[in-house]
């Protein structure tokens, strides 16, 4: 079980950092020269309005269309947000150069030291997304992290790049609770692994069970807890494990429409991140729990709510759900009007899921 991953040119963290620094310097130089020439500088910001978010079938993810809005200092009403964007680039440049990390909330407060005023955090969050779109780099590259954290466990050796830990190595199987996927894991270099597979799992409880049951050893797997909808840093790590280490990624979620979509976002991104290109694992496979598994494994179920059903009909309009298993499972869910959680396997014993279900599904996945 070792699919040949399509490997785009492998970028180490250091390379990424350098190219980002160059990108920022280029932007800064552009604006510097504009001012020197007495020209009012501007940014082209890709439009993130709904009408400009399109599904790219080739990339197999949502991307922004060609619509671009100009944020110009010529326009008085844009002057403030231009300066905010400018400041953020300046501040991110410092973060990257000094290898410091910050949070969305930090950014909001940091701005006040520079006489750049944000009315509230949503305003600064929005400017961060603008900068992501301008640079087509996720905010994690700019050393700006959200509060949400997820975990990883397995035989993976990494080398830190964060200040004070430069060159220090760790193996992610050393701690049984797993490792937080935070700034240092997001910026580390991936050194070595004996694993042949990455299993992303929706729930922390199951993640712990998998560690206890030594799934990492039995299946030669790196286990990732997505803690619900996978945060960007987690998706970015999954992508790196796939692209840089050549590991196939499989996903286990609850047997409901939200679970199916968690898998889809890992595979092909979300509309919210349509301006970014490096957060998807197009080859990732959703192992389950499928709607069809509910009957097949006679899982205890709970009835769907109105909003569950509405979510199904909404997703049925999404271009990614128009064919294959994705489409089929939605239809079955809609027919059953019932759902099953991962924990449902416990009815047949706590290890039923790792002993029986997982091997069967992994076997099946080979043919997907």
């Amino acid at each position, binding site marked *: 079980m070792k699919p040949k991953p399509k490997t785009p040119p492998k970028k180490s963290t250091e390379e990424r950092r350098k190219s980002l620094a160059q990108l*920022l*310097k280029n932007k*800064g130089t552009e604006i*510097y020269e504009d001012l*020197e020439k007495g020209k009012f500088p501007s940014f082209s910001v890709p439009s993130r309005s709904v009408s400009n978010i399109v599904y790219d079938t080739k990339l197999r993810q949502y991307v922004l269309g060609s619509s671009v809005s100009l944020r110009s*200092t010529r326009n008085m009403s844009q*002057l*403030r947000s231009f300066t905010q964007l*400018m400041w953020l680039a*300046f501040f991110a440049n410092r973060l990257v150069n000094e290898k410091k990390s910050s949070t969305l909330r930090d950014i909001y407060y940091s701005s006040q030291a520079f006489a750049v005023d944000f009315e509230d955090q949503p305003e600064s969050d929005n400017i961060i997304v603008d900068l992501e779109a301008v640079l087509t780099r996720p905010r994690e590259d700019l050393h700006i992290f959200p509060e949400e954290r997820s975990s990883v466990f397995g035989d993976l050796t990494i080398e830190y790049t964060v200040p004070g830990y430069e060159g220090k190595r760790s193996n992610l199987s050393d701690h049984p609770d797993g490792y937080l996927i935070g700034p240092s894991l997001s910026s580390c270099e991936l050194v070595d692994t004996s694993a042949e597979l990455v299993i992303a799992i929706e729930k922390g409880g199951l993640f712990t069970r998998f560690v206890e049951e030594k799934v990492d050893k039995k299946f030669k797997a790196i286990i990732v807890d997505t803690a619900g909808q996978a945060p960007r840093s987690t998706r970015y790590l999954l992508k790196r494990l796939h692209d840089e280490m050549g590991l196939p990624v499989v996903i286990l979620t609850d047997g409901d429409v939200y679970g199916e979509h968690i898998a889809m976002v890992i595979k092909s991104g979300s509309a919210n991140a349509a301006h970014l290109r490096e957060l998807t694992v197009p080859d990732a496979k959703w192992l389950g729990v499928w709607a069809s598994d509910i009957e097949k494994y006679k899982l205890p179920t709970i009835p769907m709510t109105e909003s569950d059903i509405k979510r199904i009909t909404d997703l049925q309009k999404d271009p990614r759900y128009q064919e294959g298993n994705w489409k089929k499972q939605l239809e079955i869910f809609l027919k059953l009007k019932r759902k099953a959680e991962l924990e449902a396997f416990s009815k047949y014993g706590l290890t039923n899921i790792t002993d029986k279900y997982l091997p069967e599904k992994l076997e099946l996945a080979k043919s997907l």
Partner: protein
Amino acid sequence: MSSKGTFDQISPSEFFYRNRDLAGFSNPTRSLYTAVREFVENALDACDQQGILPDVHLSIKAVDPEKPDPKPYILSVKDNGPGIESKHVPLAFGTVLYGSKFGLKQARGMFGLGATMAILYGQITTNKPVFVKSSTDGKIQDEFELILDIQKNKPIVLKHETQDTSKTGLSISICLEGDYAKAGAKIRDYVYQTSLITPYATVTFDDPKGEKFRYTKIVRSMPPAPTIISPHPYGVDVETIKRMIGDSKFSIPTVDNNTIEKVKTELGLRKKDLNYTEIMERAKRRWSSLSRNIRVVIAVMSFLKMDFAKLSKIRIDDIDVSRKKLTYWDFGESKSFTIDMDPETDYYKQLTNTVQGETLVSFLTKRFQRVGRTTAEKFADFAGFKPEKRIGTMTNEELVKLSDSLQKFPTFLSPDPSCLAPLGAEPLEKGMKAFFNPDFISVIQRGASAYSGFPFVVEMGIAYGGDIPPGGTKVYRFANRIPLLYDEGSDVVLKVVEEIDWSRYKVKGDPPLVIVSHICSTRIPYKTVGKENVADRPEIERELRLALQFLSRKLASYMSKRGLAEMEKKRANLYLKYLPLVAQFCTELAGKQKEPDYKKMLKEAVSIEAET
């Protein structure tokens, strides 16, 4: 039908005493305020009428400052007006319904009733006399101390002295129960607003707490005084017509001794006693010099064929012109007689004229304003009367028809505005400037218009910014130079102001905006007895709206100029703040040491037209 009750006639004083609520004297708060108004308005009216620039001094003092309200106050108002002749003073201030303001022209008060009511109220509540000082010649000042005999409606002079003085004017001082704690704000408002609409007057107010309010003259010219005029046909009802007819004809003459003496005097027969024939001959010779009522008596005598001695013993009961009969009562014989009148004689014509009154055409042209002969004849045709119809012969039904037709006839000229006294655009503007020191001001005086036969003129001013605090539009309402302070809710001016869509005139949020509205009319259509709000007559509403729209357009053009200037300033400030930041950030980003030279761009930035 029998009743053991007695029917007493009550005097006007008694009536007002019993119904003082009607005149605004219902409680100590309201009474104090009403008394101030009445005296101040009388003082201003008196000066206006004589073309004197008014100096009015108001003072209110507590008799015992330690006492809690309500308590007795001494209210004094002093003016530099023409004063009142000594002989009229007791009657003017000691009699209800004795006044000089009965006539059709614009004035603040109608009949001068209020001042007497205030005196009456003061006397009722404190049992103190009123002090009046008056000088008409600027040399001698008469000083009176009066009280009212309420039941007899007569003044009682307690003291009358004269003193030397150097100024004309009237000063009046009463003691009354009031509540300044509650009425104070209202009175201060009243004084403030009165000064605003009377910029040619100096008004001062010393309040009981020792505060002094001084509003000195802003302009030194009086607005033109109004003239007294006849009523307009649209403005009369049946009752008014009846009263006008009564004024225009003579009633059946009473031939008492008094009348006979007058006839004798005019004929020059006070010492002589002539017989009937001699009397008639003498009358014929002197006919042209005789007054109208004497001619009527002579005419009657010609049919009675009586001398003075006989005439004094009868009473004329009826003169039936159409049936040519004259009926009289003979006291001597205690018997009624009816005689025929010869329609061919001049005497009969004389009687006809006086008893039946004028012709309709003559009535209309003489008694109404702006009605000419042609209009009067057209009207007669319209109403279905003969032009030579004697108005004295009209039945009640015909009078109602006449009154209705007067309302409906479409081609009467609009009422004569010469009886109005608007303030004028210039004094209004100067007054508003002095009061509000605004950034922008515009005023307008509309042409005269009329509702229901009453002429009116609307004056309006609008002021923006300056000393005016923000917080939305403040409307000052005036009617006949009186401030209308309360019951704002249902007023027509406020209705018109509220209907304005300010955003169309580039006015946003809670602007520092003042609107001064002044309606002048011989009759302001007040909604309530309290005279605080004007009813929404369509004609008045229309004039107010046109005035306000005119002013709002002026304001809009000012606002857009101001907006451009403000925008420019805002731009300059924004670029001054942000451009250095952009320069600082990009310098570090680009890895340079020296900041780019952006200073020249600051200038350019301001000149860029707003692009959004």
